[in-house]
Structure formats: structure tokens, C-alpha cells
């Protein structure tokens, strides 16, 4: 196995009992973020991960690859995505100056397309003809199916049965795009189980199949690759905020399921030590109820899906099923880089409960005319907290990671709206 140095590594220094993150040269092995990350996979996948690692490293040094990626970002995805000032919403955020990084305006409606196109190009470069993906909210599945259609690749998407129900719109989108959607009925029937099933498929099909992991989790080099393709979000936001405000923001805010939209935004400000990095995970019914996806608030370091990271687990190391109204945040693990940012204190993570997120969803819709995804609504609720904490002089960027079309059925049930006469709203609240 060839371990190459990370493009950017971090080091933890113990300073008077406090851990502080630096970006100095590091002895941290590539593929690890402090003690987190690594590769915990069946041996059968080692060769494929090595192949992916070297394909990725040669691709990003290859001007023709980068030219093609950039061209697709501009002409197909619609990048750069705008940075929108949200003045009316900001009135509910302690009057802070709130900006929305509009990943919802990307083709397919979320940040997921950034990574899917990048990995689809890698798939082609490795000479593979088929892509598989896991999906929770369906946004990554749709993005992968889209990239597959664009490049003429086969595509199979694994989705927990529970998620196919609550994100039914995205199932149809994937099918229209020509992808096969496999409903996973094992375990909790959500994202965790979809990943298990995708891994099982990959072990058996790896010679012609690339697994397009959709977030910054999984075995090395996935967290690094996904971060690389999502870093465009942070780079653009950093330039845009300086044009708009003439300075860097005080805080950047994102929701954290696996954590790819958060890493994308955070990466643009990682070295700006005065910019706070704030991540919001799903508090579900409330951390105290046990029905949540709050890995940092209630989990502990362990190994899940190929990486060491914070995991919701019992005393025996069995994974505890997560819960969130948001399918995309309903995952008991988290990207290993987030675990490291958490431990070092560089980023701060808090849970947002279902009700707080849904209130933020309604608020943004009514104050700005933007219906966010329920995942994204957790970040918006977080921004309301951060704004009140930092006050009216603060400049805050929120990653508006996805749009809420896929969530209208859930929202209708939650708010008890939208039922045409004669249709009974089951599970209404």
C-alpha cells in the first residue's frame, strides 16, 4: 500500500492541557485525522481503495481532468453558486448579518452533485462502467444517477426502505434518470443499512464497479476525496463574503450527517483561526430521549463503516439505530475529520431537535422565499443560535446545502397542511 501525504494535514499540540489545532507539517499518516479515519475493511477491498487512491492523486495533478471537472461545474452544475444575504431571516438571528451559500441552486438541488461528478469522472478514469451509491435523503442517489446518465455509466443506488418511503420523490427521480434503486430491508432500514448493502455489492463487483460514497465517511481515501470535491463550496464562499463584506465571516454554519456539506464549507476557512466552525447534528426527539442522531452529544469513538470516528454505540460496541426527521442526518456515524475537529476544539457541534429544525424550515420559507431541505433546516436553526450569541455585528455564512422539494410530504404531515379535501393525512401532528 502506498501512503502519500495529505494535501493538508493537521496536528494536535498539547498546550497546557488544552488541545489546539495547527496546520503545521505533520507526522499524521495519510488517511487519518489524528486518531480517526483509517481503513477498517475486508481485505478484498484493499486493492480497490489503493487503486482509487492513486487514480485520485494522479487525476488532481492532471490538467485535463481538472479542466473537465471545472467545465462541468460551470456549465452543468451551475457553479459558482450564489451567496445570498438573508435580511428578513436575520431578524430572527439576533440581527446578525446572515448569508446563505446557495448549494440548493445547483443542478439536482443540493451540494451532492459536486462530489458525484468528481467521482464519476474518477470512475471513467479507472475504466469502470458501473457506479453504486448509498443514499439517505436521496440527494446523493439522485446526484450519482445524474452523473451516471451524463457519462453513460450504469448506476445502482441502495436506499433504506424507511427512506424510500419518506423521500419517495427522489426514488422516482433516480428511476427516471435510469438508475436501479434497491430498497434495503435489513436492520433499521435507513442510511446505515444502505451503506452495508452497498459495501456488500462492491466487494463482489469491484473489478467493474466504483462505489461513489456520498459523504466524508468510510475508509481512506473516501473522506479525503469527498472533501476535495466539496471544497469548492468553501473556496467560493470565502471569495464571495470578502466581496460582500470586505472581511471574513465570524462563523460558518452547516448541518452534519456524514458531514460533507460541512467539510466543504469549513475547508475554506480551516486556517482562518478567527472564523468559528459550527456544525449541527440531528437531535431528533431530543438527546435525552435516546431517539436522535447526536454522535458528538451522545456517542463515543469507535469503528463504523471502515473508519474510526464518533459512533452511536452501546457498551458492547453494537451500533445504536439513529433517529431524525431528516433522512440525510439519520446516521449513527460521522466523518472522521469532524471527530478530529471536535476533539481539537477547532469546530463546535451541537444537536438540533426535529421541532427546532422544522420551525427554521418554515421561517426561512416565509422570510426569504426559500424552502430548504430538512437537513439544511438544522443548520438554519443553528444559525439562529449563533446569531443571537454573536450579536448584530456578526457575519455568518450558512451552507444552504439543499432544497426542500423532496420534503414536502414530511412537512405537510408535520404542519398539518396541504391535504386536499378527501385525503386523510396520516401521522398528522
Amino acid at each position, binding site marked *: *500500500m502506498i501512503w502519500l501525504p495529505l494535501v493538508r494535514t493537521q496536528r494536535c499540540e498539547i498546550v497546557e492541557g488544552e488541545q489546539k489545532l495547527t496546520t503545521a507539517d505533520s507526522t499524521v499518516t495519510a488517511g487519518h485525522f489524528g486518531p480517526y479515519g483509517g481503513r477498517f475493511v475486508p481485505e478484498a477491498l484493499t486493492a480497490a481503495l489503493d487503486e482509487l487512491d492513486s487514480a485520485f492523486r494522479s487525476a488532481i495533478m492532471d490538467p485535463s481532468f481538472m479542466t473537465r471537472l471545472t467545465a462541468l461545474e460551470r456549465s452543468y452544475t451551475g457553479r459558482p453558486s450564489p451567496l445570498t444575504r438573508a435580511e428578513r431571516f436575520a431578524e430572527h438571528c439576533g440581527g446578525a448579518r446572515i448569508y446563505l451559500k446557495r448549494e440548493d441552486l445547483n443542478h439536482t438541488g443540493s451540494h451532492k452533485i459536486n462530489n458525484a461528478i468528481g467521482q464519476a469522472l474518477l470512475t471513467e478514469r479507472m475504466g469502470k462502467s458501473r457506479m453504486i451509491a448509498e443514499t439517505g435523503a436521496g440527494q446523493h442517489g439522485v446526484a450519482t444517477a445524474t452523473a451516471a446518465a451524463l457519462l453513460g455509466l450504469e448506476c445502482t443506488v441502495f436506499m433504506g426502505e424507511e427512506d424510500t418511503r419518506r423521500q419517495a420523490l427522489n426514488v422516482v427521480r433516480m428511476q427516471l434518470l435510469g438508475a436501479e434503486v434497491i430498497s434495503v430491508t435489513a436492520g433499521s432500514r435507513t442510511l446505515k443499512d444502505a451503506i452495508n448493502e452497498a459495501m456488500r455489492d462492491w466487494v463482489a463487483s469491484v473489478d467493474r464497479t466504483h462505489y461513489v460514497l456520498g459523504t466524508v465517511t468510510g475508509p481512506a481515501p473516501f473522506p479525503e476525496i469527498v472533501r476535495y470535491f466539496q471544497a469548492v463550496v468553501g473556496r467560493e464562499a470565502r471569495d464571495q463574503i470578502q466581496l460582500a463584506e470586505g472581511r471574513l465571516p465570524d462563523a460558518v454554519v452547516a448541518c452534519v450527517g456524514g458531514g460533507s456539506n460541512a467539510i466543504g464549507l469549513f475547508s475554506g476557512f480551516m486556517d482562518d483561526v478567527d472564523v468559528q466552525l459550527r456544525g449541527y447534528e440531528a437531535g431528533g426527539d431530543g438527546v435525552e430521549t435516546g431517539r436522535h442522531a447526536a454522535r458528538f452529544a451522545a456517542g463515543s469513538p469507535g469503528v463504523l463503516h471502515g473508519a474510526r470516528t464518533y459512533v452511536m454505540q452501546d457498551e458492547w460496541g453494537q451500533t445504536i439505530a439513529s433517529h431524525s426527521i431528516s433522512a440525510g442526518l439519520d446516521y449513527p456515524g460521522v466523518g472522521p475529520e469532524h471527530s478530529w475537529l471536535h476533539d481539537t476544539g477547532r469546530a463546535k457541534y451541537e444537536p438540533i431537535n426535529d421541532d427546532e429544525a422544522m420551525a427554521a424550515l418554515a421561517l426561512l420559507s416565509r422570510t426569504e422565499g426559500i424552502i430548504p431541505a430538512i437537513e439544511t433546516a438544522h443548520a438554519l436553526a443553528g444559525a439562529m443560535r449563533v446569531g443571537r450569541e454573536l450579536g448584530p455585528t456578526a457575519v455568518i455564512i450558512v451552507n444552504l446545502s439543499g432544497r426542500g422539494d423532496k420534503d414536502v410530504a414530511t412537512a405537510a404531515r408535520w404542519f398539518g397542511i396541504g391535504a386536499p379535501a378527501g385525503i386523510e393525512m396520516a401521522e398528522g401532528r
Partner: protein
Amino acid sequence: MSRRLAEVFSRAKSTNRAALIGYLPAGYPTAAASVELMNTMIDAGVDAIEVGLPYSDPLMDGADIQFAVAAALAGGTTTDVVLDVVGRLDGERAALLVMSYWNPIERYGVARFAARLAAAGGNGVITPDLTPEEAGPWSAATLAEEIDTIFLVAPSSTDERIKSVVASTSGFVYAASTMGVTGARSQVGGGAEPLVTRTRRLTGLPIAVGLGVSTGAQAREVAAYADGVIVGSAFVRCIRAAPDLPGALAAVRGLAGELAEGVRR
């Protein structure tokens, strides 16, 4: 290397056969029944038992073993129960191994797990999702307790990779016959024999082949080139298909006997 596993392979070799290694998850269908079933396997000629430690996310396992470990977990099978099951097996007549995904061992504490397993009479551990790169503390803990650490090689492993894997391995090398998850198959993967041949050039350790072996005829085919034959899902299927425990015991005894006959060269 534990003397026990070395003995198992040398005894098999001296009687001109491959060692037979049988897998069942602890706690399936119940803890007590799994002890009875595994002791029956030993009685019918299995040389080493691979006691599965049920895990919530068994991503290397196919449908049969997924079903069994989910049932075992639902029945309250914890790591302590697994170690208790190991302690109740007939370690006089068979080597005792544990097959576990990594997180339960790490959570239990690697030194504590190695010590408790040794105390229960265990001889080795197979860790399908632990790579040698991540195995530093595990190797130290198991060495201290004379527990063998069994790692896997796969048809996709390069020679360089096999060298690195066998350097961390003791007891025997687990050669995955096919690129895929566990499960009975109509044919043993064609990649198995070349993989054993390549691995044999790089290590003096015994090599056992697993994944997809379910019949006496397949065991015979594999025994022709490998030092050990590993069977798991086929035993689980026997139990799933049986109407009750006596039926399961009879079916498991029958399959173990057929396989034990098959591994004779």
C-alpha cells in the same frame, strides 16, 4: 503462534487431510443451543470452531449469517455471552477461534478481550475488517496471551499485500475464495487455488480457504490444495431449515460428518 492451532494443522496433515473449520454465531438460536450445536460439530469431526461474535453491521456477511446474527443479538448475545460460549466448548478436541468484526473487540478493550478469551480457552481470533495497518495494539495484546491473529487475503490481494498480511498473521492464513460476502455457493471461486498458490510462496503458515464451501464434494476439491477448509453459512442454513433443536443437531452432525469425510485426501 498458539500450540493448539499448530497442532490442529499438523495432526490433519499427518493423517493426510485438510483441517476442517466450522463457523456458527454464538447465541444462535440461543446461547445454550449454540454450545450444543458447536460441540456436536466437534463430535462429528470438525477440527476447529469459529465462534461468531454477533455484530449489528456485518458487512462481509451474506443473508444467512446476517439473519443468524440479528437473531442472536435480539436474543441478548453480548461479548460476555460469546466468551462464555467459548468456555463451554470442547477445547480438548478442537481449537477454538472467535470471528469478530473489529468494533466490539475495540469497545471491550483489546487487552481485556485477549485475556478473557485466553482464560475461556480460546486459541485465536479472525478479524475480517481489521487490516494489519490498524492492528498494532491488537498484535501486542494477543501476543501476550498466546492468541493467534488470523488475517485474510483475497483474490485481489497483490503479492506485496499478501506479504504484509502474513507478517501480522499467526495460526493460519484465511484465504477468501471469492470476491464477495459469506454464503453457500454452487461453486467455489476459481480464484481460490491461484490465491493459495501465491500465498504459499510467501509464507510457511497453513492456509485455509473460506467463503462459499458448503458440501463434502467442495471440501474435497479445496482440500486438494489448501491446508484447511472453512464452512459457515451452510451450517447456519442447516439450523434455519430445521424444525427444532434436535432436528438442527442432526442436520449439523450430518453436514459436519460429510465435510469431515470430504477433507480426506
